């Protein structure tokens, strides 16, 4: 079976339990087990080859640009871990089937479990460190799901988050480390990296890479000071704890250290960081475990302690120590998984895991007691069990290790750790199972069914078997694995008796003093309890909560909804980069001479400046502000006329009027004044920002105007080709409808969209809700004069409207050759129509002539678009214009250009958009209680007074 398939199997299989849960819990568990068994089978089929020293590989190209490929390989180390993961996984699946209650969503559980299993298998099979990283992070994610499985428990959620945070953070550090490693070697393939020890250890980046990778490993393996998450992960269901925290996830860190051992180990940096961390972890965790009353917490800290032990062994950097480490990994997996499952059984049966509430279970649960006894004695290092073998070998290694020139520190401290280990192991047995049977168990315990104790029993048998005949059971496995770890041939010799070596004395001492320690548990516990000590969760929360609060405070402060501040920041940023760009560049001063200032122009300037200054001053009076905007718009238009831009002037003035109209219409409902709300300081600050912006923009345009630039502008072409190529003498208009007609197409689309959005907006406002209620209760906030529709205006409009429409047609038609065009014509017609509305009211006018403004917009955009498409039929690109001169009898020659059709589209869209906006605002007014008159004017002089009401 291909390694890729083995790695993929759990992921593919993860779908099944979720789907099959409807077929029942047994089916669900069976299929999960089958998937795992199948994967295990796949691994085992490769076992003979691996044991022969071969390396099985599978390569799959994935992301070659990055060097990330789905490359897998299976050597001794991978085989051991894959076996552990899948083998123990199988047992856990069996156990969980009986452990989980009917209320728990079992399908979900098995899905998560398989995802986790797949991630773990992936880690140990990866031949690409980037791929390994992916699986690495996947274990963090899937364990997050597993730990938080009981979603209703706050401890579960918090424990899951803590585990994810810590291991996730470690994973991220490891990403950096791995990338650096790949960078040094030039490949992310493990097999390549593992052959470059000198290159890596000689690199300047060795230490950063080492530290970053170790952070990843230590967090995952719960090494000091990252150990705190592990006990909190115990909020998970016991099968999870048993799986994650004995055999798999926590061992991923060990796996990684073992995997990278050939290229990272052997340096002083490695030794002091890894060995010291392992040693500290071992002692500290063992001590804590001794004082824990929760069975699972005790086991959790004992796990941390044993992981420290293994870490320390790997840290020694010698082949012998590494071999011992491998052996202890096997041993620990067997006894610890058995213990976890047994603890789960006790919890399941007695409904408590508190040692203080237990005791005497030996009589009630003999099978469980036997299993625990075997496993715990192994953990304590009592011969002939497997734990004894590896622990003694470990002690032996410490004896040969010099730490900062000191020969006794290592063995002494390791023995101390072993002592605590003995103590908590015995306590586990004694305080839970020995002593008298109690009457106050939360639930009357008894041994569970076979299904539940089978798995730990199998492991207990293994503990004994390996202990009794280690070389037969695991000799080859340890050798193969250790060879893979050290990258050479490992020598394995496991024996119960080495003679009277120092390790034996240390071991004896540890057991003895462990006994004593257990006897003194009560006084020590009193001391322990009275000593203040950091609580992991409190510290974690103390770090994370303020951080989260600060994040919230920063975010809320930064994005507080104050547009004024947003825009102030934006303005300052823009000014800053603009200034920086200018200052850091070369600028030659202006080459042009100033155009002379005619007095009239100066007066116009004065008016513009004066009106703008007044706007600063009076902007709070909103009506006045609009009058001033009118003045400014007028002066800008006049400026355009003066500076040879008649089209601009026409457009600007009509747009300005239309804008002011809309603003007036809106102002009717809005407050008429803007109150003073900013402090003087803030106004001053805003004034400074505004002044800076004004100076910046003014200086920029001045510099631009004063300089002749190197290149001729493309406008020369437009001037030359406007008449011959575009058929019009008004170059600006020809640019608009021809050279850059596509821009204009976009521009009228904008207008059309504006109309549609306004309509949709008003439709929404009037559909009901706060706005509608507010309108229904509307009371005008200013005194209203009588005579809504003064007679004089109505009568005058009857003349002005037709004339204005005619002017509109005129401006439309002449646009191609003289100032004008569809847009201005559209606005003229729109303004003329507004005049009619002002005279007799919108409602009155609309009732007399129903115009579908939507259709105007729709047709406008469509006509413009179709006009552009038309040129396809002449095999020309979109918007290719053509024009011709025609002569009809009796009538002078005239020009017809397709651009005029386009301009018609522009015209219709403009009229439609403006009218739709007015119509919308008028609907708001009608909802606010405004009435529609039936006569064009209020005053009826031709009506007989006696007639009275009609």
């Amino acid at each position: 079976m291909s390694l890729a398939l083995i790695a993929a199997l759990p992921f593919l299989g993860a779908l099944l339990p979720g789907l099959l849960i409807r077929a029942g819990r047994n089916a669900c568990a069976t299929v999960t087990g089958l998937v795992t068994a199948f994967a295990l089978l796949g691994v085992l089929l490769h076992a003979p080859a691996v044991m022969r020293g071969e390396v099985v590989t599978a390569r799959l190209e994935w992301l070659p640009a990055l060097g990330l490929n789905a490359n897998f390989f299976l050597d001794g180390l991978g085989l051991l871990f894959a076996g552990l993961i899948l083998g123990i996984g199988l047992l856990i699946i069996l156990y969980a089937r009986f452990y989980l209650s009917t209320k728990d969503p079992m399908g979900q559980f098995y899905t998560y479990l398989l995802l986790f299993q797949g991630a773990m298998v992936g880690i140990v099979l990866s031949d690409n460190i980037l791929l390994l990283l992916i699986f690495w992070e996947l274990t963090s994610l899937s364990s997050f799901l597993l730990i938080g499985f009981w979603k209703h428990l706050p401890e579960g959620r918090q424990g899951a988050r803590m585990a994810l945070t810590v291991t996730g953070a470690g994973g991220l550090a490891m990403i950096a480390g791995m990338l650096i490693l790949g960078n040094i070697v030039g490949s992310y393939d493990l097999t390549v990296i593992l052959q470059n020890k000198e290159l890596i250890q000689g690199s300047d980046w060795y230490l950063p890479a080492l530290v970053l990778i170790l952070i990843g490993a230590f967090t995952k393996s719960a090494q000091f000071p990252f150990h705190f998450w592990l006990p909190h992960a115990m909020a998970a269901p016991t099968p999870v704890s048993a799986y994650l925290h004995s055999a798999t996830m926590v061992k991923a860190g060990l796996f990684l250290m073992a995997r990278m051992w050939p290229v990272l180990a052997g340096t002083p940096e490695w030794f002091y960081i890894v060995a010291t961390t392992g040693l500290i972890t071992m002692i500290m965790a063992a001590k804590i475990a001794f004082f824990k009353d929760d069975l699972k917490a005790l086991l959790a800290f004992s796990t941390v302690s044993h992981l420290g032990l293994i870490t320390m062994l790997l840290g020694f950097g010698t082949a012998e120590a590494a071999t011992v480490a491998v052996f202890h990994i096997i041993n620990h997996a067997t006894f610890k998984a058995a213990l976890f499952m047994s603890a789960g059984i006790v919890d399941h049966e007695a409904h408590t895991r508190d040692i203080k509430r237990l005791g005497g279970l030996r009589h009630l649960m003999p099978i469980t007691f036997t299993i625990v006894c075997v496993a715990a004695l192994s953990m304590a290092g009592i011969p002939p069990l497997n734990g004894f073998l590896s622990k003694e070998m470990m002690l032996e290694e410490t004896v040969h290790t010099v730490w900062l020139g000191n020969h006794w520190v290592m063995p002494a401290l390791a023995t101390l750790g072993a002592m605590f280990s003995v103590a908590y192991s015995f306590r586990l047995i004694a305080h839970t199972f020995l002593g008298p049977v109690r009457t106050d168990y939360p639930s009357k315990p008894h041994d569970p069914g076979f299904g539940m104790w089978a798995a730990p029993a199998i492991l207990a048998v293994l503990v004994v078997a390996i202990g009794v005949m280690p070389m037969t059971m695991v000799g080859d496995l340890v050798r193969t694995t250790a060879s893979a770890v050290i990258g050479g041939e490992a020598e394995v010799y496991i024996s119960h008796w080495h003679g009277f070596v120092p390790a034996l004395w240390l071991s004896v001492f540890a057991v003895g003093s462990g006994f004593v320690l257990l006897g003194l548990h009560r006084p020590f516990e009193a001391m322990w309890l009275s000593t203040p000590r950091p609580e992991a969760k409190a510290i974690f929360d103390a770090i994370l909560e303020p951080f989260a609060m600060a994040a919230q405070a920063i975010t809320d402060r930064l994005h507080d909804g104050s547009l004024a501040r947003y825009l102030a920041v934006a303005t300052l940023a823009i000014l800053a980069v603009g200034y920086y760009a200018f200052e850091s560049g070369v600028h030659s001063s202006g080459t042009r001479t100033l155009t002379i200032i005619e007095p009239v122009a100066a007066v116009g300037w004065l008016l513009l400046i004066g009106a703008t200054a007044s706007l600063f001053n009076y902007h709070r009076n909103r009506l006045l502000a609009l009058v001033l905007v009118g003045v400014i718009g007028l002066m800008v238009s006049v400026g355009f006329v003066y500076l040879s831009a008649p089209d601009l002037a026409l457009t600007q003035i009509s747009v300005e009027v239309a804008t002011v109209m809309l603003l007036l219409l809106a102002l009717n409902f809005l407050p008429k004044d803007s109150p003073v709300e900013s402090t003087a300081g803030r106004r001053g600050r805003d004034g400074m920002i505004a002044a800076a912006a004004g100076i910046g923009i003014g200086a920029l345009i001045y510099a631009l105007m004063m300089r002749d630039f190197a290149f001729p502008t493309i406008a020369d072409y437009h001037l030359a080709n406007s008449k011959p190529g575009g058929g019009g003498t008004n170059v600006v208009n020809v640019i608009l409808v021809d050279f850059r007609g596509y821009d204009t197409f976009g521009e009228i689309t904008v207008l059309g969209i504006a109309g549609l959005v306004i309509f949709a907006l008003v439709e929404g406002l009037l559909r009901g809700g706060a706005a509608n209620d507010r309108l229904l209760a509307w009371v005008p906030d200013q005194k209203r004069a009588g005579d809504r529709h003064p007679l004089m205006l109505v009568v005058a409009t009857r003349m002005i409207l037709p004339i204005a429409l005619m002017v509109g047609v005129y401006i439309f038609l002449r646009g191609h050759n003289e100032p004008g065009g569809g847009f201005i014509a559209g606005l003229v017609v729109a303004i003329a129509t507004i005049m009619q509305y002002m005279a007799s009211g919108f409602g009155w006018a609309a009732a007399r002539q129903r115009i579908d403004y939507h259709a105007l917009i729709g047709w406008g955009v469509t006509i413009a678009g179709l006009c552009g498409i038309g040129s396809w039929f002449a095999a020309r690109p979109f918007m290719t214009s053509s024009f011709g001169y025609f002569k009809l009898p009796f009538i002078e020659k005239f020009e017809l250009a397709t651009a005029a059709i386009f301009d018609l589209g522009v015209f219709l869209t403009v009229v439609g958009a403006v009218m739709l906006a007015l119509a919308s605002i008028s609907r708001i007014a009608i909802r606010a209680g405004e009435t529609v008159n039936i006569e064009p004017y209020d005053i009826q002089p031709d009506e007989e007074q006696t007639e009275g009401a009609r």
Partner: protein
Amino acid sequence: MELLVASAVGLMTACGVYLILRKRTFPVIVGLAMLSYAVNVFIFASGRLAIGLPAIITKHPEGYTDPLTQALVLTAIVISFGMTALIVMMALGAFLETGDDYIGMEEREQPAGPKEGAE
């Protein structure tokens, strides 16, 4: 003349920027309109100033001003008209929905004290 145009553009920009930094929708919209005036003149002036030389082809030209910048300004004017119309209506809609015309979402600073209120 260039000085006049540049200073006018600068002042209109400054006025626009000052107004968009206010707290109510209406002055902000007026400020945006001012900014659009300013930028229109800016674009126009970036094609240089010419007096009495409109870009209308004649038989005996003394020269023409840059027609392209004018066309760009026209496009810009139209677009900003559409945008202004839209934001006016949105501001009105927001006012009708919420009952106030603050442009800030949460911002409700206390009005300035009587001393500062006297402008």
